[in-house]
């Protein structure tokens, strides 16, 4: 309440005021005490001032959010963006399917299979990724590629997105830059479990050409390396 009752609140801070000690333990600690209990005064129990104050706060938020337009998507979505925009409301919600935020560069999305220059799948079915996969969600059935220099390719390449834990180990394990998770897309909601399985075709449809050189053709990244400089930038990433 507006009129302060400092003397009323003072005992609360230090605990109840001991009026009398009726009995003691052998070591002198008090055993039975009479204490003064500070009960709230009538003006504190009416809750009127607190109610009015609270209503003022909620009303301010409600009115602002009702009458003012939403902030720009970028301001809502980006962490670290300035929170205050003048004459805008305070709602931070991103309405997902209609509004999408740009994901961080290293966001792990749906898998893609990268392509060779001629559009063939880059994967050589070495089985590194199903081996390393902790969720056992990758199934590869290899076949002969018909190219003596390449030896194998996947006849089938399936990833069960319901089992995938999006750890990215498959991408790390791949020696050929054949599988990537840089699509920036979510696993989609499906009505049938079978539809959650990504096939070789669907992942190649998202495929892009790898910038890594392949099969010893073209310039090798070692060519530009300075003697002893192990930290040289591998060409695969740019």
């Amino acid at each position, binding site marked *: 309440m507006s009129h302060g009752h400092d003397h009323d609140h003072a005992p609360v801070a230090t605990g109840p005021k001991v009026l009398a000690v009726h009995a003691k333990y052998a070591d002198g600690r008090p055993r039975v005490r009479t204490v003064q209990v500070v009960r709230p005064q*009538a003006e504190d*129990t*009416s*809750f009127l001032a607190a*109610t009015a104050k*609270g*209503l003022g*706060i*909620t*009303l301010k*938020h*409600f009115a602002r*959010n*009702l009458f003012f337009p939403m902030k720009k998507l970028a301001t809502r979505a980006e962490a670290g963006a300035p929170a205050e925009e003048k004459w805008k*409301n*305070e*709602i*931070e*919600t991103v*309405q997902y399917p209609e509004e999408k935020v740009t994901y961080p560069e290293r966001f792990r999305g749906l898998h893609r299979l990268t392509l060779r220059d001629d559009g063939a799948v880059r994967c050589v079915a070495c089985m590194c990724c199903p081996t390393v996969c902790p969720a056992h969600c990758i199934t590869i059935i290899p076949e002969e590629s018909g190219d003596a220099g390449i030896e194998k390719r996947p006849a089938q390449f399936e990833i069960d997105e319901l089992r995938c834990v999006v750890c990215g180990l498959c991408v790390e394990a791949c020696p050929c830059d054949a599988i990537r998770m840089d699509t920036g897309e979510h696993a989609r909601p499906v009505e049938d479990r079978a539809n959650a399985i990504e096939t070789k075709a669907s992942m190649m449809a998202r495929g892009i050409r790898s910038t890594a050189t392949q099969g010893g053709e073209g310039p090798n990244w070692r060519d530009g390396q300075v003697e002893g400089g192990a930290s040289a930038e591998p060409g695969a990433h740019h």
Partner: protein
Amino acid sequence: MRRKKMQKMRIILRPARLAVLALLLLAVSCGREKDVPDLCATNPQLPGCQVQCVVNSPVLKCPAGSHCDADGTCSVSCVRGDERCGSGTCTAEGRCVESSLLFDILDFPATKWAILILALVMPLASILTWMERRQSAMMQDRLGPNRANIGPIKLKGILHFVADAVKMIFKEDFIPANVHKGLFALAPILAIAPVFIAFAIIPFGPTIYPHALTETIDPYLASAGGDLFRDSIRLQIWQTDFGLIFYFAILTLANYGGTIAGWASYNKWALLGGLRSSSQMMSYEVAMGLSLMGAFLVVGSLEPGLIVAQGATTEMSPANPLNWLFLWQPVGLLLFFTAAIAETKRAPFDIPEGEPEIIGYFVEYSGLRWGLFFLAEFIEIVFISAVITTVFFGGYQVPFLETDGFHGFGMALPLPHVVVVLLQILAFGAKTFLLCWFQLMIRWTLPRFRADQLMNLGWKLLLPLSLANVMVTALIKLLFIKPGGAP
């Protein structure tokens, strides 16, 4: 020690003393009015003395079975059941009218009830189920449900209530083992039915004269009767002198729904919820009733229709906002509003259904049975808002809108009857809606009371304050209002 005990007793007795004082004052103020000498017996030439009644006056009205003629006498043209009207029928005011089946049906209480419930109460209650979530979201910087749609029709998510209804209808109606089957089924109905019944006393619009819809009505002419004003339809289902008492009585029954649900559910939490709901109802019913007594003293009637048609005093037009009771009974309004929120069992008074501690008396209910409890809560919000609108905010009155158009500030704007009626019904709806909105604001602002805080507030604050309110109102009336004058 003894003295301390005495002091304690005195504190306990304070509300009781207040009550006795208030009753005494009531008795005195009532008695004084009766002691007024009949001035008209000695001075028949005084204005107002020659007439038995004034046409359309809610105060100087004729006894039941008779009506007021333009010359100020009460007359009886017919009595129900006799032959004097020929092919016509006899109205409750003892007037012969040509009977018209259509208007008889429209004037039938069940018809009015159906129209009120279907056109005002249910839509408002349904929209409240969506509004509560949307509004709370906006108060908390969220968006809230805004997606339910039928094809491209989205309406900011209002259709969520349709989705909710469909969901609840098609959910499994699960009845746990060991419940008392009969009472378990009865409880939701007991919770929702009384609220519907209580709406009977609410005047949700003015009297409609269906044959004079396009005319600008002179209120005095209308009451005198005549061909243009026959078949009048009063937009109040049941007009009774104990209207507000009736509402207290009926709405108390709704509480049995919760208590019986708790009892029949064979569940400790449900039983606790039921008990809490009864104790809360008992604590707040007293303050709620007493807080309206001030309004009763000011107006001199408990009939909601009269409170709206007359206002606080006959000196001013009932359409003048200065004549609405929120200015005459601000403390009464505050107390009634608080007690009424407690009666609806919503936050901050929602200990009977406090979600984190006990789910509440409907913990064992599912599907549409639970939906009935849910709906009953929202209809109670609408009802409480309607009562507060009626008693404290002039009911269907639009500021400065009389029966024949706008008057005020030295100007007059005559309006046809149909426009006036529509404006007034709209005003009632708008006021009720605003109060519903305010109740939602309170519900999403305040945290739940503890049970002991609840009892403290009810017994130690609301009750003495409402007694004091009655007392002060009675005192002011006794000292400052001329006896025999305007009530």
